[in-house]
């Protein structure tokens, strides 16, 4: 059996690289910088030297062609290595056995190919630190190459020359931007020159690694994410190999927002759009990290999703929790501010982390009948904590609660009910009770027997007009006197009302099946508590049976539904419109 080698069409490979692997031709500069850094690190393992990387741009090179040259004084290549590593796709000096891969960013052996996205010809001139002659390699877009030794006394290192294609958009400004983006945090400064004149030296430090205290951390976040951050959290994983900063977004974020984070690996920029770096709940921060233990994918534009990433994610999440816990002692006002802005995210986190829940629950604020109060403040006022899980119910009974000087919590916002229910199970210093409008119906003062005897018949008359709505009238006496009625419809009733309406619009088959399986448990769908302390209700009950009773009761019912934010069905809408017409007729 003969063994043959695959034939690789370089043009086809390049198309794959540019269309599928790399997001833009601009990554060629990152690939070259990465090769330089890896070469420098390789030489460092052999000897001490003063490393440099220089990038030169010639706007008017030979025949007016734009040229880019990237030079380093790294380990360089021998003639054999040129054959091995430049002329074979997928072969990399950094993926060889015995090489410490942790030292290198790249290892896939495809980086140099990205240069063909901007140039039809790549020229490499190199001298190896291992000795021997200088070598030259010329690679062409058609897949051919030449290699040779050259008799020139050049320094150890490598120069890569690219003649930029006419079709590629690249000028000195863009090149400088790309160098800033990809390489400004590298440990070796990049000397950038244009047309032979040194333009600038590019090198920055990650601000969180600096010893000095200034606002450089915040400046980096503002520059990266274009947001006006004022708080941040230092990050560090268990190994210390991943460090960075979580910037707290200075405004409320929608639940479930997935933020894009910025990732550097071994100081080389990888991505500004990493979505998997942080736990799901951490949607109130944006993060910049530099990692020595995460790995890039082959395109080096994303991070590899492996168990290390999972550990890093968990550790960075823990940093946020630890920071908040520490803040409760060192700077409670800032903690309050953060909780106020990001309560949804923190409540979600608390519900999924028992330890964190026990710490933070007391700091959460809830809307109450007395304004927004933290749980600790609520407990200072009452040990019998009443909360309502539905916003509309809260709105309805708010005036009653206030008139009765009773503190109630609006737990209708996301997670609040679960937080308060959870507290009920662990907090033995107070009682937690979920209530609804019916609870008020039950504790509202009953009217006297004499009153019932007096107005019972009248209530029966009025009840007749409510039958069509499946609404039950109940006479109570409550403060404030200005409130004539409170309307109550339970969720179960809302469902039953809805099912009934679906059934009415269904054909016989479905209507019959619904009747056979669905259990309508409520005799009435809703309840209207009439307030006998209210002058209008008193007047209504004292008045004799009248033709206008129906009009009045229907209007009262529909108004109370609208006040409670309950949707009107078609019949109710028709009644409302007809009644308006009748009222107009009476007035006119």
């Amino acid at each position, binding site marked *: 059996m003969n063994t043959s080698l695959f034939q690789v069409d370089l043009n086809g490979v390049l198309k794959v690289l540019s269309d599928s692997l790399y997001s833009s031709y601009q990554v060629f500069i990152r690939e070259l910088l990465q090769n330089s850094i890896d070469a420098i690190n390789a030489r460092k393992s052999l000897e001490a030297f003063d490393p440099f990387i220089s990038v030169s741009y010639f706007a008017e090179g030979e025949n007016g062609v734009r040229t880019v040259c990237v030079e380093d004084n790294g380990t360089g290549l021998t003639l054999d290595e040129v054959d091995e590593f430049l002329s074979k796709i997928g072969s990399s000096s950094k993926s060889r056995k015995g090489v410490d891969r942790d030292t290198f960013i790249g290892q896939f052996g495809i980086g140099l190919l990205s240069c063909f996205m901007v140039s039809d010809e790549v020229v490499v001139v190199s001298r190896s630190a291992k000795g021997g002659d200088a070598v030259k390699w010329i690679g062409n877009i058609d897949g051919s190459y030449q290699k040779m030794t050259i008799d020139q006394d050049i320094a150890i290192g490598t120069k890569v020359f690219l003649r930029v294609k006419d079709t590629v958009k690249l000028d000195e400004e863009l090149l400088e931007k790309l160098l800033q983006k990809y390489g400004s945090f590298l440990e070796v400064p990049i000397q950038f020159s244009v047309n032979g004149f040194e333009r600038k030296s590019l090198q920055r430090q990650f601000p969180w690694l600096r010893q000095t205290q200034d606002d450089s951390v915040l400046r980096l976040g503002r520059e990266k994410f274009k947001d006006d951050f004022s708080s941040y959290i230092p990050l560090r994983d268990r190994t210390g190999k991943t460090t960075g900063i979580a910037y707290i977004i200075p405004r409320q974020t929608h639940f479930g927002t997935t933020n894009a984070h910025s990732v550097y690996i071994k100081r080389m920029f990888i991505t500004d759009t990493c979505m998997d770096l942080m736990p799901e709940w951490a949607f109130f921060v944006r993060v910049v990290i530099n990692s020595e233990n995460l790995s890039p994918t082959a395109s080096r534009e994303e991070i590899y999703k492996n168990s290390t990433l999972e550990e890093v994610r968990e550790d960075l999440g823990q940093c946020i929790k630890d920071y908040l816990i520490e803040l409760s002692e060192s700077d409670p006002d800032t903690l309050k501010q953060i909780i106020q802005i990001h309560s949804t995210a923190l409540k979600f986190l608390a519900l999924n982390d028992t330890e964190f829940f026990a710490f933070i629950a007391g700091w959460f604020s809830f809307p109450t009948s007395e304004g927004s109060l933290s749980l600790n403040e609520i407990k200072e006022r009452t040990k019998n904590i009443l909360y309502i899980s539905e916003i509309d119910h809260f709105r309805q009974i708010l005036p009653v609660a206030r008139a009765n000087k009773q503190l109630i919590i609006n737990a209708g916002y*996301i997670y609040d009910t679960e937080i308060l229910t959870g507290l009920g199970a662990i907090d033995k210093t107070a009682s937690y009770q979920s209530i609804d409008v019916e609870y008020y119906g039950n504790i509202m003062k009953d009217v006297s027997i004499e009153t019932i005897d007096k107005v019972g018949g009248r209530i029966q008359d009025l009840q007749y007009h409510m039958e069509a709505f499946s609404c039950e009238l109940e006479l109570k006496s409550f403060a404030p006197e200005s409130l004539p009625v409170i309307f109550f419809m339970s969720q179960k009733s809302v469902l039953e009302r809805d*099912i009934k309406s679906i*059934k009415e619009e*269904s054909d016989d088959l479905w209507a019959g099946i*619904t009747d056979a*399986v669905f259990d309508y448990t409520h005799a009435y769908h809703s309840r209207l508590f009439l307030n006998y302390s209210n002058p209008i209700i008193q007047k209504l009950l004292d008045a004799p049976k009248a033709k206008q009773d129906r009009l009045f009761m229907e209007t009262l019912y529909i108004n109370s539904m609208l006040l409670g934010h309950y949707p009107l069905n078609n019949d109710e809408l028709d009644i409302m419109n007809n009644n308006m017409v009748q009222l107009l007729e009476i007035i006119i």
Partner: protein
Amino acid sequence: MIDIRTESDLKEALRFVGRNAHLATEDVEKASLLCITRAQEFKNIDLEFEARTEYLNVANYRHKPDAVIAMFPWLLKKCDEARDRFDYAEVLWAYRWVISSTKQYASVPKAKLQMLWDDFERRMWDYGAQETTIYEMKFYFYAETGELDLAEEQLRLYRAAPSGGELQSCPRCSPFLMACYLFDRGRYEELLETIDPVMKGLVSCHSVRRYKLHMAMIAMMMLGRWDEAEKYALMSRKELELDIAILFPFSSHLIYYGITEQFEKGRRIFENQFQYTLMSVPDLQRFEFYTGALVFFTRLQRSGRKNVRLSLSENQLLYEPSSMYSVDSIVSLLTEQIGQIVNALDNRNENDHYKQYAETLRLRYDHIQKPVAERP
């Protein structure tokens, strides 16, 4: 719950419900109902469709088949009015739930059941569903209405037909098609072979573990493999939450805890699950739960206990303010209830399948006794 004031809030709330439906909490159900209400207020039929679809999903997770069935016609009607506007495939998928549950209610007449089935089958063929989907659903249909010969015939067709395609059960779950049937027939060796991937943890989704591990527990017990039965009892119990109606798996636990005299564990299940049998759960599920409970209380009775303390909520069927109940009276009540359900189901199905099945179950568990040395 979420404060929904705008359509954007509503979309956000729907995403919340979608992400959390599987948690099957009351809060998620309330949120999904609120979404329907708000979509109606906004008069946005597309969002209402989405909200009702989400509600159906939540109600299904919360084991409320009556709500699923009653809500479903709205979705079907909207699809029929504007087929291209809505996700018909999703509605047809929900139709499978409807078909599965409806036959379990004795109150649904046979004629209506047949009309429903015809409508379902026509829609599935029209949509281009694979024949395996039809055979699978028909198999369940006949098996649960006591037409066992017809069920076997559908099974044969199912096995002969090519698998795959839309609207079919998840390919990882479809091998367990027979499990319930084998369990009911007492074919435990075959059952264990069928659900082996679940027992080995190769198929690990929650719903499969919830509905299969209890079968492994009973099968092991019936085969006298008591240690393994206990192992699967522990594994199965972890998959079952007490605060939603999961009557079938819990009925198996009642049987097991009764026979192994783990009465405290059984009592806790009964106290928590009994309330759901008084709601609108399918009769077949009530039958299964009462059968399990009857085995449990019969064993309690045999152990010499006259009374049992039960913490039950106030209801018409069984409630003592003192919380002390006579075991004899519970056994009588369960026997009577089972008799009523069996009659209702058999009358509807026009056969005597459940009467015979109830007697088979009584005899099946009556003489099973765990050796004293092996009792936990």
